[in-house]
């Protein structure tokens, strides 16, 4: 198997490259996507045309894009990083003015054949530009304040734009993803310590001010934060959905209620059952066993990314692969925490499983980059 042929010293050429792809990773991605098709078929009440079929087409398109991206040498993509970042920022600005409003937020641009969410694109572009930046930056300058400011600005611009849409979930993913990229690149611990300390200090000051005469936020703002952090204080409004989601998940038990037998999703008690809360249907119908299986698939994808990255001696490739793995992790970790009631509901889809075009395609392109880095690694 070519994956194991470490002895090959030269980058293979032509179609032979395909043999050197990280095939186990592709199999894992396909397996996760199949879980997605199955669940979309189930939540549509046994209709394949509603969600499952469009999702399959997108996955096939994504798979094709992945191969194309994988065939192109990784140094081409490194050179494209800044351009990709600028285009993404440009699209985010455009969406601000011309975007369509969906679910109360401006999020996509209608391209005719598909709706493009620039914020999804931005997740990858940011990882690319940060990887390229740290590839370019001499290592000893990494922790110098001036050279730390640059990536911070690179992160804050798209984060701010996404936040105004408003899309809190994506903004958190961008901020966390960018920050962790800097951590991976070797920025000194002290910066992170300082930022975390400042953040904690600020938040606790705001909350301590509550009820005193120097209160920093209005009462209704505090109440909104309360509801956001703990939806059960508003059982008929925001709390209703998360309560129903937890009931769906919990009622699955060990082995679930059976395929297409989940009452919470079939009877529409579950909100957003084909997008953000699709994991609850899985957990309801296949129980703990089903839920953990998907989690294991995700972790394996993560592990393959990390192994691939750590084997790669090219700094850009390594950073990029780790960054994409990280983004993928943030996706499913935030989504699962949210649907299990561990985190506030912020609107992050379950990667490769939730119904949605942009996220699927962008993720497949991202794994194309991972494959390209894998194929074109220096040997």
């Amino acid at each position, binding site marked *: 198997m070519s994956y194991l042929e470490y002895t090959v010293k030269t980058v293979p050429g032509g179609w032979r490259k395909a043999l050197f792809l990280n095939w186990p990773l592709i199999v894992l991605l396909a397996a996760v996507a199949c879980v997605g098709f199955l669940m979309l078929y189930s939540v549509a009440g046994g209709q394949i045309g509603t969600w499952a079929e469009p999702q399959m087409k997108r996955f096939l398109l994504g798979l094709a894009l992945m191969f194309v991206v994988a065939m192109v040498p990784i140094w081409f993509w490194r050179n494209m990083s800044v351009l990709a970042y600028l285009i993404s920022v440009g699209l985010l600005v455009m969406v601000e003015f011309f975007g369509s409003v969906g679910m109360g937020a401006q999020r996509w641009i209608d391209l005719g054949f598909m709706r493009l969410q620039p914020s999804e694109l931005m997740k990858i572009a940011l990882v690319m530009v940060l990887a390229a930046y740290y*590839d*370019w930056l*001499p*290592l*000893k300058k990494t922790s110098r304040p001036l050279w730390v400011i640059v990536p911070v600005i690179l992160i804050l611009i798209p984060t701010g734009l996404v936040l105004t849409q408003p899309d809190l979930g994506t903004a958190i993913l961008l901020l966390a993803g960018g920050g*962790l990229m800097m*951590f*991976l*690149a*070797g920025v000194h611990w002290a910066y992170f310590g300082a930022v975390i300390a400042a953040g904690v200090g600020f938040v606790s000051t705001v909350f301590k001010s509550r009820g005193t005469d120097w209160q920093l936020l209005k009462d209704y703002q505090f109440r909104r934060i309360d509801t956001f952090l703990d939806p059960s204080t508003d059982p008929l409004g925001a709390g209703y959905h998360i309560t*129903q989601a*937890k*009931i*769906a*998940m*919990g*009622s*699955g*038990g*060990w082995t679930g209620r059976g395929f297409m037998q989940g*009452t*919470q999703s*079939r*009877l*529409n*008690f579950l909100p957003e059952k084909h997008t953000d809360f699709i994991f609850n249907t899985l*957990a309801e119908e296949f*129980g*703990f066993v089903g*839920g*953990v299986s998907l*989690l294991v698939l*995700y*972790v394996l994808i*993560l*592990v393959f990314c*990390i192994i691939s*990255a*750590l084997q790669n*001696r090219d*700094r850009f490739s*390594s*950073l990029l692969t*780790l960054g994409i793995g*990280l983004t993928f*992790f943030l996706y499913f*970790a935030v989504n*699962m*925490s949210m649907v*299990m009631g*561990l985190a506030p509901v912020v609107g992050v889809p379950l990667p490769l499983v939730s119904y949605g075009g942009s996220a699927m395609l962008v993720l497949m392109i991202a794994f194309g980059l991972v494959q390209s880095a894998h194929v074109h690694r220096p040997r």
Partner: protein
Amino acid sequence: MRRTSKDSADSARRITRRGMILGGVQLGFATVLAMRMRYMQVDQGEEFRLLAEENRVNLRLIPPARGQIFDRNGVVIAANEPAYRITVVREDAGDLESTIARLATLVELDPSEIERAIAEMQRSAPFLPVTVADRVSWDSVSRVAANAPALPGVNPEVGLSRHYPHGEIYAHVVGYVQPVSERDLARYEDPDPVLRIPRFQFGKIGVETKYEDMLRGRAGSKRVEVNAAGRVMRELDRREGEAGADLQLTVDTRLQDYIHARLGDESASVVVMDLEHGDLLAIASAPGFDPNKFVRGISYDDYGALQGDERAPLVSKTVQGFYPPGSTFKMVTALAALEAGITGPGNTVWCPGHLKVGSRRFHCWKRAGHGHMNLENALMQSCDVYFYEMALRVGIDKIAEMGRKLGLGAIHDVPMSAVGEGIMPDKAWKRERWNQEWRIGDTVNCSIGQGDVLTSPLQLAVMTARLATGRSISPRLVRSIDGVEEPSRGGEPIGLNENHLRWIRAAMYDVSNNRRGTAYRSRIIAEEMRMAGKTGTSQVRNITAAERARGVTRNEDLPWNRRDHGLFVNYAPYDNPRIAVATIVEHGGGGSSAAAPIARDVTLQALYEGDPPVEAYPTADRDRIQELQENLRQRRQMAPDERTSRA
């Protein structure tokens, strides 16, 4: 971009180290997620499973069939009949306007109803059926069913509704049901959930309300699966309810119907009581009203007409109407005097046409006077002065005590609405009520059932029954509940001297059988059925001295509502009493002319199985009786419902 090899190697190490750290953190978090999943799904799984079931399963009530009400012979008085309604489901109806327009060509639809229904449809969930036509005929339903393909979303539905086949004759006794209201619910501390069903029928007056809790029955239930929007997906299981208890009343529909026919347009009431168990064989108040109109929802105009009618069809006169008993009270005065040992059958009083008490003159109805009167003659000819004298001797308290013993001034336990107490006045009552001392004139007035004495027809019937039996017999309206017989109300002996009662009864016999008796014209010819009774006339107006001097205006010349009430109480047969009857004809004139003939006809009708032979009546009445019987036969042949719609 040039890089030294040392630089590169250092970078690779740092990425490796931090990559491992981050990878470890990621795996750790994945473990946390798995543990959370285990906690929710395995440890708390049962609780969440229960919550999911609670979400999914909805309990729906199935209304129970209301208990039916029968008369003593098993004739249905209150029945449940299928009620058809037509509902429309918005989401199935397609173009709502045109569907309803098509429906309107088949069924008569009220435009305002349609407007209301469309507004309701737009408010409620699209899958909920909304009633567009209630209580439609079977014909309409079958037309709708036959045209079902052209009427998407239109469904005929069937439920049960109360129906009173005999219409007005039991309106005051059985009452009616109407959709349950908030006020009805307020009666209960913890209302039966079935009462929350919209438009559930609830007893509003009469037996329907007094036995509401027994008649209602117990609701069944079905468990259905609903989705988040409340739409029923399927039925899981059902438990049938329990129909309400059937009631059998003591009334006899043939007799009740006869009385209403006999009373015609009079504003009158008749109570017929059986003397064995106290069964009320008939308790009729005329005019009546059609209770079915109230069940359906009576129109404002119809209700206004009922309320404005001077003959008060809405008033249940038998138990709610209170009248001065007039001369029918004289038995009470006489018996009080006899029991006190003040008088005897041979004792006489001189009647010059009036009695002077202090400075006031109390007149006898016969201005010329009756001359020497003993007990028998005084009752037979209804001489007032004799009873003035007796009352003055015995005193009001003893009279009132006797009245109460005989059932006056008391609420009798009959499951009808607005059963009243009336007034049996005495000294204590006057002090309490008016804060005045009792005056001798009051005693004189009360002795002949005027003044403050007020009695209902039911109380007079009880009084007559007790005189006839000597027992404290009480009225019974419900004979059995779900086949279980109610206890007899025949009563124990009151403890009156049997001789005294016999003298009173003999005098009452003379009232209708002695040539000089006030009700002789209304006597019964048939030997074995002869009745004993007493006439009464109660004044609605005061007769002033000036008027009396001019000569009292004859009743026929007065406007209807100022004429005297005619009363008659009787029991029969005299030798072996089986029934007691009290009759009051409002503004009918005298008791002998207005009430006695009706009472005699009713008595005969009650005593004979079927129509009594004309030979039982006096010759003068026979033609009229024959005609009435012929009318009645025709009336009975008509379907009861046709009669109702005419009424």
